[in-house]
């Protein structure tokens, strides 16, 4: 079976030569689920309590059905994977509020001789149409990262589209970068399970402009992704992030019809390894609300692909 026949919408994706997963949500959840903590303490309590890790909005198969438009469906078929928040957010400089995010994770492992990894998806987002008007500024951010561990480091390359912060429009992409935060600074003043750089979607100081202790802005103009003109119209847009597993750096990001260049020294924080997760490859998508409204990120198909050293050599000799 060729790569193309595994993909639900071949023209929407540009995978590397080997497909690790091609998930069409018309065929179920495909192993995507809520990102939840480790329930390993007394009474099955979560291992980490710096914030409420148990109330993120549950992910679901969605028909994208709205009050006046009816069922939107997905780019191909009826169902997409929906990440929906609850209707509560903290201020920009505070730690994330209970239920202010929704996160979807799929748990894979590093294939033999992999040198590059690419995660692609068709995405759309909207605000719950629970009041008149246009909810284009209700979402704080959405993004994608990959939780990785090799023999030497755990690291999380990722990107985040900051839409609005405390109601102020931002419309710019940032990437996860190295942090100099101490463990205490990273974990909101508590000792913390999380090494600096691990789980930057939640940890590290938050700033009023939407940046954090472990994010850096891409240079260039703002990018207004398609929100459309009402809360019940969504447009499917391609999103692709490629990372170099050997150098532990970024290769490329594209969103919609725009490509972004990473600065030469851009890289996520290289944290020490954790026990029992060597070879981890966990792609994660997330969405964050900016206020008292529920916001949703929809994924129609996710493709995870990789290349090996052999592929890279073959490409170089062509």
């Amino acid at each position, binding site marked *: 079976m060729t790569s193309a026949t595994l993909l639900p919408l071949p023209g929407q994706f540009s995978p590397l030569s080997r497909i690790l997963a091609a998930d069409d949500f018309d065929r*179920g*959840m495909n192993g995507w689920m*809520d990102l*939840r903590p480790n329930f390993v303490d007394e009474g099955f309590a979560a291992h980490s309590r710096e914030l409420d890790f*148990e*109330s993120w*909005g*549950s*992910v*679901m*198969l*969605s*028909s994208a*059905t*709205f*009050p006046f438009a009816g069922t939107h469906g997905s780019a191909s078929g*009826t*169902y997409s994977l*929906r990440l*929906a928040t*609850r209707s509560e957010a903290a201020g920009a400089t505070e730690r994330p509020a209970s239920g202010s995010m929704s996160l979807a994770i799929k748990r894979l492992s590093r294939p033999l001789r992999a040198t590059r990894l690419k995660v692609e998806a068709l995405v759309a987002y909207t605000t*719950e*149409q*629970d009041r008149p008007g246009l909810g284009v500024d209700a979402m704080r951010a959405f993004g994608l990262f990959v939780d990785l561990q090799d023999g030497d480091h755990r690291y999380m390359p990722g990107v985040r589209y900051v839409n609005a912060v405390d109601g102020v429009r931002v419309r710019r992409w940032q990437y996860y970068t190295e942090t100099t935060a101490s463990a205490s600074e990273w974990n909101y003043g508590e000792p913390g399970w999380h090494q600096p750089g691990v789980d930057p979607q939640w940890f590290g100081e938050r700033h009023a402009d939407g940046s954090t202790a472990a994010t850096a802005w891409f240079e260039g103009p703002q990018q207004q992704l398609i929100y459309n003109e009402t809360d019940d119209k969504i447009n499917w847009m391609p999103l692709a992030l490629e990372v170099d597993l050997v150098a532990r750096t970024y290769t490329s990001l594209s969103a919609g019809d725009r490509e972004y260049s990473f600065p030469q020294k851009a890289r996520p924080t290289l944290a020490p390894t954790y026990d029992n997760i060597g070879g981890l490859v966990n792609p994660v998508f997330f969405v964050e609300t900016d206020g008292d409204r529920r916001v949703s990120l929809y994924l129609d198909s996710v493709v995870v692909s990789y290349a090996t050293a052999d592929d890279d050599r073959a490409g170089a000799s062509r």
Partner: protein
Amino acid sequence: MKQFYTAVTDLRRRVTADFATFPYETGWADEATYFVTIEESSQHAVGVQLAVQLSADGIRWHDEGTTMSVASGSAEFARLTHFGGFLRLAGTVESADGQQDAWVVVTVRLALKG
């Protein structure tokens, strides 16, 4: 084979007075089972009364007709069919003395098949 998915829509959520569980899309499923567990409760909380609700859009809700009564420290379930695209539970915390600050910690699991 059929699809199956269990969503833990509300995990150890502390609730008081009137509340609603996390709305969940169920359009693909033929059958649903809600499992509700009360994990902790305040001294005067005797349990929760729950009504299954369905919706055409996930925003405007109707009582489906099924109700559940869950006592503090116990767990119950309700089996459902023909529920359309969205489900949630609307609940009320009941206290022995009518105090409004009675609370319970509730876990809600929704098992879907279709």
